[in-house]
């Protein structure tokens, strides 16, 4: 992981189209401003992980349902 120091108001530019600006700093929190092109999703990490887990669970439930129906077919 790349780690950089930034002061209030300073930016990071990623890939030319994405900019992250430090807009506020307090003891336990930073506020970030993000500019990204349309089509690039920007998600809080925990929301991303929740959706990824829901997708994985939907796929799993499907293979479970499939093996269930195979079991039933065997009985």
């Amino acid at each position, binding site marked *: 992981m790349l780690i950089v120091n930034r002061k209030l108001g300073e930016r990071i530019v990623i890939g030319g189209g994405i900019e992250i600006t430090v807009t506020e700093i307090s003891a336990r929190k930073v506020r970030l401003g993000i500019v990204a092109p*349309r*089509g690039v999703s920007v998600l809080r990490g925990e929301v991303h992980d929740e959706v990824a*887990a829901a*997708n994985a669970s*939907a796929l799993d439930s*499907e293979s479970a349902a*499939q093996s269930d129906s195979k079991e039933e077919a065997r009985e």
Partner: protein
Amino acid sequence: MIRIDNTRFGTIEIEEASVMHFSEGLVGFPNEKRFALIHNANEPIAHLQSLDTPAIALPVVDRHLFGKEYPSPGPAELARSAGLGGDDFIVLVPISKKNQNVRANMLAPIIVNAGNRQAAQVVLDPQRYSTHAPIQ
């Protein structure tokens, strides 16, 4: 025609024109970029079959199951912010089945530009929608 073996539907053949292209993949599955919608007319549940990984088939239902208000913001705005464009959209909601319970991932529907078949999974407001909403 694209032929894909070993799916839950067996071997399937998909016309190139009906392939949906997800430039960012699904959330958590960024490498799955091509899908086809497999829909048996008698069943409410369709499947988004990955054309890259045969084992991946995401069960989905049409958004109309959730009433006229869903999704908010509406399909056109979601498509625009996802960089899809177009004016005719299909919105699909992933579901999961555990025992007899069917849950809908209303937080993260899939939006498809029906014209050019560009598609994306978008994430709505987590304060408003859940990943495991019960279906009546």
